[in-house]
């Protein structure tokens, strides 16, 4: 039995060597490390998958994806390992900007080009960035809501994790572009649902009990908006409920088509991937001589143009 366990252990420990592509590396191929925030996060997974698909268009680039597991220590270890492994370029999706800052500076000091994506980390010289503007992602929905939300409305708000830059910026947009513009509107409930559908469902179930009237749900992402909608689906008392999200997920496309989700803003992982790989290719071929900072658009998606979202997800095989 002991010998069997030893043999199994050796095989398992050796497996990564055979399963990885490093063994078959050609000299002319550029090695890119993509450090994902957390592949268990559906948006981060979508972006990682899109990066891999986009990388196939570049025969002189290979991408190794590393899962940061939403843990700063893990992400930082991957950054350090990527320096030691002498990758030609690193693309980093930070979990926490400040926690990753000193490690990004190490990459810059090591002379390895680095692209910061979704989110960018401000104020580090020597980095390139590709991101979406989270303030604008919230703002496009908020500006629509200014005209749509009825007078003296009661609204509830679902936030992402505390301290998350995207959630904070989107919430700031809703404050400035909607709540400050509409002082008649009352926020009757606000909670942190950690981007999670089931947490949002539980909050909405309780709010429906304790709040006499809810006119709108403001959510910092589509997942949580979808959770709130599950609670009131089919309930005629909430026929006119307005619900706003961000991301433009496949589920959001379905919900907008059904007339349940009012609007979202499309944070296209496909577009982020395209820009990241295009920039990586230009950096590695020496075309880029200055530091590049790019934002993707965050178009507002409503029932009128939801076909844009559907087509994007159908092309990617998500619908």
């Amino acid at each position, binding site marked *: 039995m002991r010998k069997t366990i030893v043999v199994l252990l050796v095989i398992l420990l050796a497996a990564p060597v055979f399963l990885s592509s490093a063994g078959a590396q050609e000299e002319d191929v550029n090695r890119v490390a993509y450090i994902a925030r957390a592949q*268990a996060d*559906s948006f*981060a997974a979508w972006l990682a998958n899109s990066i891999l698909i986009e990388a196939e268009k570049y025969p002189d680039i290979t991408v190794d994806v590393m899962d940061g597991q939403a843990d700063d220590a893990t992400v930082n270890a991957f950054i350090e390992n990527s320096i030691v492994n002498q990758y030609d370029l690193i693309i980093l999706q930070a979990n926490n900007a400040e926690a990753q800052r000193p490690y990004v500076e190490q990459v810059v000091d090591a002379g390895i080009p680095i692209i910061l994506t979704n989110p960018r980390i401000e104020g580090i010289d020597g980095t390139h960035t590709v991101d979406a503007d989270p303030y604008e992602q919230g703002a496009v929905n908020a500006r629509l809501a200014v005209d749509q939300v009825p007078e003296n409305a009661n609204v509830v708000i679902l936030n992402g994790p*505390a301290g998350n830059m995207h959630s904070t910026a989107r919430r700031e947009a809703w404050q400035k572009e909607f709540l400050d513009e509409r002082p008649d509107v009352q926020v009757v409930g606000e909670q942190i649902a950690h981007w999670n559908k089931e947490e949002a469902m539980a909050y909405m179930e309780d709010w429906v009990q304790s709040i006499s009237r809810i006119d709108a749900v403001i959510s910092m992402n589509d997942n949580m908006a979808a959770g709130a909608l*599950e609670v009131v689906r089919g309930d005629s008392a909430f026929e006119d409920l307005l619900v706003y999200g961000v991301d433009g997920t496949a589920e959001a496309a379905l919900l907008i088509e059904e007339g349940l989700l009012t609007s979202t803003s499309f944070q296209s992982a496909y577009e982020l991937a395209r820009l990241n790989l295009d920039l990586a290719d230009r950096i590695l071929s020496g075309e880029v001589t200055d530091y590049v900072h790019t934002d993707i658009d965050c178009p507002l998606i409503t029932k009128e143009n939801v076909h844009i979202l559907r087509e994007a997800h159908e092309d990617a095989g998500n619908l």
Partner: protein
Amino acid sequence: MKINRDVVSARWDMIKTRFAIYMVLVGMIILASFLSPVFLSPRNLTNIARQVSVITIMSFGQTLVIISGMIDLSVGSVMAFAGIMSVSTYVATGSILSGVVVGILVGVACATINGLIVTKLKVPPFIATLGMLTAARGAALLYTEGQNIYQLGDYVMLGQGSIFGIPTPIYFLVGLAIVMWYLLNHTKFGRYTYAIGGNEDAARASGIRINRNKLTAYIIAGAFVGLAGVLFMSRVNAGLPNAGIGYELDTISIAVIGGTSITGGTGSATGTLAGAFIIGILNNIMNLLGVQSYLQQIIRGTIIVMAVAYDSFAKTRRKVG
């Protein structure tokens, strides 16, 4: 007169020892009913039951495993993996029954692996199930490439439907509570489980087949977790590969609050049910009152410790007395 007072006092001590956690639950219900006018509304009460149903079913499995002196850290990941496979089966076949069966079988398969690693390879349960926690999560993410599965159609009836006005998950909850209670209190397996958890050497000396009982405990727990995965995914109307993160800690907390000893040998289905509702009511009343998220976490942690401390204190006083 003095004798009657002593008898009454002794009876009251016995009641407090045996029913401490239920008294905490009743106390919370009474307090919550004063704090919010809608707390006792039928809709709110069914909301609570529906919200706790998945985690309670998982906690029954965890309770069984802990009573027999083991632990299962993989319940959250296995729940997600089983739920994903269940949803995929339904999407592929259109059969809800097939989806449910596959979900349960996946839970059982993962639990069987846990049980074999513990009983045959003699790996501590903490380590064995820690490995499964990672592996099952990886399997769920690999299968779905990290993406959610949508368009579940009639599958959602299991988690969102109702029969005679009572949400379907509550029927599962009550049914499995009865199954769990019967298993622990009226079967040889239940008695052996308590014996093994209480004193494994003595149980072995009395002829109980330890490994077989432990493996069976994991398998039954796996079936509970698999079914919980089915209900979870149907409730959220999506196959979520990242579901259930942290649920292992919740199920252990619920079991311990309900009187299950973390060292084994003690616990009950009704206690676990009470523990789940204590947490569920706590979450519910704080949401009804609009308590801010950060404060909720502090209050939750404090009340959990106080509830268990009261229960432990009552039992300790009884032993000393």
